[in-house]
């Protein structure tokens, strides 16, 4: 097997599976075949990735360039389709294919239960396409190709979030996901244009050359170099995809999609693409310290900001979503302070334990038919395996040693501390918040008594409808406040079935990296760091790998444990009332968090109401109708009016006509005499 073939296999296997499902299967009834095809493709891709890993390890500088085709050629513009495989690529490939494969296996059972009508080949087609696109993105050797697949993963996200398109909330969430990320993509696209105009290339390696960066540093406008603008644009795209503030609003809503989708796309892979992109382009960012500062600040702020919203969310998937945003912020923070290895180390770890958490949430929801934690509880008894897996992943997320999360988080904290105390402070608070909401989630879900699942939720919802119209509106609007109800399938809740093997096997598999992946880069063995930095980036980045600081590790562990303890006091021991906590300071902090800092309302108000309803857009539409078009119609009316006036002149009276002749003679003569 050659590298070229392997690279093609990685990218091609899911693509073939996509095409096979689209053109080879019937829309309904052949979902089992589709599922198997997809899973098989993922497996092939995984093996190929593994092969590539071995090849990269063997290659000098861990770099391979197996493929480059000229896709389009116009004048001086060459658009290419090419693969470049280096240590970073291959790491990402393995993460993506691993999680993908496990999620597909999980999906086969999960989706069968969610879709009674057996017409969900569409789901697998989308998943295949997503994986192919994601892999294409990672493999790309030029930014144009990155953008190409960047948009395609966005499309798949849109299609999968809106998978249950009959639900208004899902349809709205899909649209929101696409639009918000597209706003970020504008930045990305403009960055591409800036880069191309100044350097004449999209090739990543050429962009890293001195000529390119010199050209970019030489020109600029509005007081910033072209390079700063370009990197800022790239970050804007990354912020959209990775749900960084203020473009984070789509990700919680994206939980409307099927849970495996959340696990794969909105936790492990696509949302990490932003981090990947910034990391990949970090050599350019290094020449733009202002952009780096922005990245770090936004990252740090997003981390704490999202974690705080996670504290109060009652929907288990939303808690995870906020957690994802928060952790992505962490990674951005790391990139912003130049901790390249730490960021990707965390990305890797996070991918595994977050995927696990989502799949766990899926299993929970699968049992209770709701994701609203208010109606869960006591699930440890019925879902013991799931409980243990989720527990491990949660602790990993909380950063408890020696689980994987601990190691990478620690590296980020160290880097942040070195860069700025403020950033470090934010990161540290985030650690506390993370630990708190994780444990809260565990208690609400698995501890205590079962609170009735979806059936209870329906009763509550009906009651709310009776007592206040707001509840119904909320449910109908579906912008994330209402819980997930039965997905329209109507199968009974708490159906007593025990855990299905196919559902917990992926969890069990994922637990391994969740526990162990931290060992890839520990004070004892920094293999990953070496691996990741032994290619071109090394030359521009230098060594940012900090020595292990036991004091810092102890501090972070203590903060995490504090968070756990507080959560235990509130939800486990119930020594502190959650209600009282919520009512603190007049209940304002709780309400602000509950309303997600009002960002949704702000956007709704700014865009939908102001611009759309009364403002610019409405004004333009009226302008078009009553000014632009009216001028045209007015010209017609004036002509017709003139015609009418001329008609009245044509009075039919002979002498009037005669008078016209005489006047004509007089006037013409007069003008002639005046002229001469």
């Amino acid at each position, binding site marked *: 097997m050659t590298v070229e073939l392997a690279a093609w296999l990685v990218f091609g296997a899911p693509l073939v599976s996509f095409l096979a499902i689209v053109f080879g299967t019937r829309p309904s009834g052949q979902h089992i075949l589709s599922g198997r095809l997809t899973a098989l493709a993922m497996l092939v891709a995984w093996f190929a990735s593994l092969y590539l890993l071995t090849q990269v390890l063997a290659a000098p500088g861990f770099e391979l360039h197996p493929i480059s085709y000229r896709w389009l050629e116009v004048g001086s513009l060459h658009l290419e389709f090419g693969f470049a495989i280096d240590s970073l690529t291959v790491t990402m490939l393995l993460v993506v294919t691993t999680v993908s494969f496990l999620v597909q296996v999980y999906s086969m059972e999960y989706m069968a239960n969610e879709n009674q009508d057996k017409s969900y080949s569409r789901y697998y087609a989308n998943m295949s396409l997503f994986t192919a696109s994601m892999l294409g993105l990672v493999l790309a050797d030029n930014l144009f190709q990155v953008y190409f697949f960047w948009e395609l993963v966005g499309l798949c996200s849109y299609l999968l979030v809106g998978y249950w398109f009959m639900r208004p909330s899902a349809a709205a969430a899909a649209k929101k996901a696409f639009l918000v990320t597209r706003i970020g993509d504008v930045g990305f696209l403009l960055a591409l244009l800036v880069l191309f105009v100044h350097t004449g290339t999209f090739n990543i390696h050429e962009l890293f050359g001195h000529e390119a960066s010199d050209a970019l540093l030489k020109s600029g406008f509005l007081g910033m170099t072209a390079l700063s603008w370009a990197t800022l644009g790239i970050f804007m795209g990354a912020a959209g995809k990775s749900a960084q503030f203020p473009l984070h609003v789509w990700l919680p809503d994206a939980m409307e999609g099927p849970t495996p989708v959340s696990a794969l796309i909105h936790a492990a892979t696509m949302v990490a693409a932003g981090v990947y992109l910034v990391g990949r382009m970090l050599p350019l960012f290094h020449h733009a310290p202002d952009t780096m500062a922005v990245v770090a600040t936004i990252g740090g702020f997003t981390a704490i900001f999202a974690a705080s919203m996670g504290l109060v969310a009652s929907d288990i998937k939303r808690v995870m979503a906020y957690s994802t945003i928060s952790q992505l912020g962490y990674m951005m923070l790391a990139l912003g302070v130049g901790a390249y290895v730490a960021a990707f180390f965390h990305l890797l770890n996070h991918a595994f334990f977050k995927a696990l958490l989502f799949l766990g949430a899926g299993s929970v929801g699968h049992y209770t038919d709701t994701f609203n934690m208010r109606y869960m509880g006591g699930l440890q008894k019925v879902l013991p395996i799931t409980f243990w897996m989720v527990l491990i992943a949660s602790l990993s997320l909380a950063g408890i040693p020696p689980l994987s999360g601990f190691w990478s988080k620690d590296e980020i904290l160290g880097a942040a501390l070195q860069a700025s105390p403020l950033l470090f402070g934010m990161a540290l608070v985030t650690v506390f918040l993370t630990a708190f909401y994780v444990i809260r989630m565990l208690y609400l879900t698995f501890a205590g008594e079962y609170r009735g699942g979806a059936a209870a939720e329906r009763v509550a919802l009906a009651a709310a409808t009776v007592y206040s119209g707001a509840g119904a509106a909320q449910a109908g609007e579906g912008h994330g406040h209402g819980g997930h109800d039965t997905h329209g399938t109507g199968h009974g809740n708490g159906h007593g079935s025990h855990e299905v093997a196919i559902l917990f096997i992926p969890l069990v598999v994922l637990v391994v990296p969740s526990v162990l992946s931290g060992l890839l880069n520990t004070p004892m063995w920094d293999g990953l760091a070496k691996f990741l930095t032994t290619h071109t980036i090394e030359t521009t980045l230098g060594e940012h790998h900090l020595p292990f600081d036991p004091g810092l590790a102890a501090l972070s562990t203590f903060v995490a444990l504090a968070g756990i303890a507080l959560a235990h006091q509130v939800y486990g021991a119930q020594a502190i009332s959650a209600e009282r906590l919520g009512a603190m300071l007049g209940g304002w902090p709780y309400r602000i968090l509950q309303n997600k800092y009002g960002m949704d309302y702000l956007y709704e108000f700014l865009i939908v109401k102001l611009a759309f309803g009364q403002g610019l857009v409405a004004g333009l539409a009226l302008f078009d109708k009553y000014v632009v078009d009216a001028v045209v119609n007015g010209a017609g009316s004036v002509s017709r009016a003139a015609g009418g006036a001329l008609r*009245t002149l*044509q*009075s*039919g*009276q002979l*002498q009037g006509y*005669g*008078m016209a002749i005489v006047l004509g003679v007089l006037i013409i003569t007069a003008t002639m005499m005046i002229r001469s």
Partner: protein
Amino acid sequence: MIEIGLSHYMVLSAVLFSIGLYGVLSRRNAVGVLMSVELLLNSVNIALIAIGRYVGGAGATGQVFALFVITVAAAEASVALALLIAIYRDRGAVDVESATALQG
């Protein structure tokens, strides 16, 4: 006293033309309008014959031209009168002011 020359006749012609024109524009009775048209043509004829008298080599041409104008006047008048009869038959009057079936 200035010697009578071409200009005198031309001015007379102009005055007569002006009077005829006034008649065409102001007579309410169609017959009156036609009479005024005849005045117009007569004024032209004065000019023609005067030019024939005073301008070198134009003598015969001027008179011939005038003869044709008279012929035209006669022919036009006959058709005009026939039309008047037709109008009179239809309306019982030959008032040009009210002949406005065609307008707009």
